[in-house]
């Protein structure tokens, strides 16, 4: 992909040819049809999510038979799920687990990414190959030994255990991305700083690291969505309901409250909301990461 035009900066004014075409009635019709198609497809994508939110806002006795748009909006299901079902515990667990994993992953991946991109050292290529070979690894291949290992360490059922496992699971992809970002930084900046008498530590900390912030943001958003949404290891490694993160907790609710749809959908909405917001806010870093990860490999 040796292309020239970045996705974000297209020429502002359309070329004259395109402007002339805009008045062509065929083009107008095409534009209308395009919007119609996009509206229908988008409705298919978000319709089920709208249904989930609407169900969480309706009185329980209308969940099965009332009109799709509730006549009366109420937030009592959220209060019930948050306080009575103690979803707040699982929500906070997820915040803690995700936050700690992010910190560990970013530190480990930034250091290693910098080394793999910019420091010449023995066995560099071998180590890079070995660590990134985990990218293809299916999670289930390590599940049972990781369970036994945490049992040995006394970390089974603890959030620290899950944090360590998640960090290991995300570090290969993260350092791969960080290496890509560090490699793309122009070397002239480091050279100039070196001529000004900056030490290697200062070059890394003051020059390269600030420039790599977009890369760190990308690593953060990927790891955040991955960890917040993980189910297999969360279910297997933490069994105490109050200690679980929010995904297995939401899944466990359906057994007990299978008919209380407003409470269930309220819990589901609460567990989905942070990542929806995160994605909408950080989507440009997300797209940048997809480009770096998928287009360049």
């Amino acid at each position, binding site marked *: *992909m040796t*292309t020239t*035009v*970045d*996705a*974000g*900066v*297209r020429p502002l004014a359309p070329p004259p040819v395109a402007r002339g075409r805009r008045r062509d009635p065929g083009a107008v019709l095409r534009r209308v049809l*395009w919007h119609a198609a*996009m509206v229908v497809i988008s409705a298919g*994508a978000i319709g089920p999510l709208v249904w989930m939110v609407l169900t969480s806002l309706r009185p329980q006795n209308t969940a*099965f038979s009332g009109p799709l748009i509730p006549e009366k909006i109420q937030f009592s299901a959220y209060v019930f799920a948050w306080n009575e079902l103690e979803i707040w515990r699982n929500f906070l667990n997820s915040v803690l687990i995700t936050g700690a994993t992010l910190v560990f992953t970013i*530190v480990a991946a930034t250091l*290693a990414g*910098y*080394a793999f991109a*910019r*420091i*010449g*050292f*023995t066995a560099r290529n071998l*180590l890079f190959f*070995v*660590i990134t070979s985990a990218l*293809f690894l*299916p*999670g*289930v*291949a*390590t*599940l*049972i*030994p*990781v*369970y036994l*290992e945490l049992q040995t360490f006394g970390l089974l059922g603890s959030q620290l255990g899950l944090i*360590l496992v998640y960090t290991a*699971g995300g*570090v*290969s992809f993260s350092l791969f991305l960080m290496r890509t970002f560090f*490699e793309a930084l122009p*070397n002239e900046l480091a050279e100039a700083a070196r001529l000004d008498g900056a030490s*290697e530590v200062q070059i890394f900390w003051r020059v390269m690291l600030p420039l790599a912030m*977009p890369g760190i943001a990308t690593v953060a958003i990927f790891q955040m969505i991955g960890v917040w*949404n993980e*189910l*297999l290891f969360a*279910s297997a490694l933490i069994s105490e309901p109050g200690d679980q993160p929010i*995904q297995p907790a939401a*899944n466990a609710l359906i057994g007990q409250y299978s008919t209380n749809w407003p409470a269930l*959908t309220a819990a*589901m909405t609460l567990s*989905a909301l942070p990542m929806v917001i995160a994605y909408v806010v950080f*989507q440009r870093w997300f*797209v*940048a990461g997809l*480009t770096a990860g*998928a*287009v360049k*490999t």
Partner: protein
Amino acid sequence: MASLAPSTRTAAPPRPGRRRPLTGWSTPTGLSFVVPALAFFVVFIAYPVARTFYLSLTRSDGFGGTYFAGLHNYGVMLTDPTFVQAAVVTVVYTVVTTVLQTGLALGLALLVNAGPRRSAVVYRTLLFLPAAISLTVTGLLWRLGLTPVFGVVNRLLTDVGLGALTHPWLGDTATVLPTIIVVSLWQATGLFMLIFYAALGNIDPAIAESARMDGAGPLREAWSITIPILRPVIEVVVMLNVLNGLKVFDLNFVMANGGPLHASESLSTYTYLLTFGSSTGGVSSFGYGSAISVVVFLVAGVATLLLYRFRKGDA
């Protein structure tokens, strides 16, 4: 995105090995920078993988210990109808989702990209939203929606006069897997669409412009210009889908718990059932579960190598 432009714009950087060191630092510092990542990798990835191989050769003695049993677990596998079923489910799921997900996502990206950019970004965001939702919530949401009598899917079918088509989608061994596949398409297509859309933004508009000058229509342009340029990205998306498919767990677990009658049991849900599930009668089958994990590991490894060689071979 301007500040990221270098990473997406530069020609392929030289391989790390052939590049001269860019800092005054050398081996001791370089290695120490890698140590934290390496430690996580060794303790929670490399060692567990090795131990999975070892555990797959052991059996439980029933008193909390294990003994070496050679290839016994692999022999059991061949005559275990549930394993065979789970293998078939996993392969069918992988092949079908890979084909549909890649094709749909590419078509959708081309469609989104064909419109004005401002609107395209809005639709792109909406189409991606399901992929920001966890598979757990996705599974729960559709499980409620597909409930036989009160579920919104069957209610909508009845409302539009298609009451004859209502069905216990997740309760029938014939429809449970296709239903899960459709739900997975709903959830994940937006992600792969976004990958293709990002790549489309990197194509030089001059190329398409010159094709149009030569009289190529939109379909011709997509087939002869865009898709060949996107080929490396298509290959990455196929690889991601294959790897995701081989380890599929969440939807099958949340929507149907691998049932009914193991009709949606994947290799991962079966391993989970054998190891942590309650229906194994108390004795966890760590050995047998590990053997199945080894199979998933090997199949994923071989698939990765094959796809990688395929890419190299055509480059």
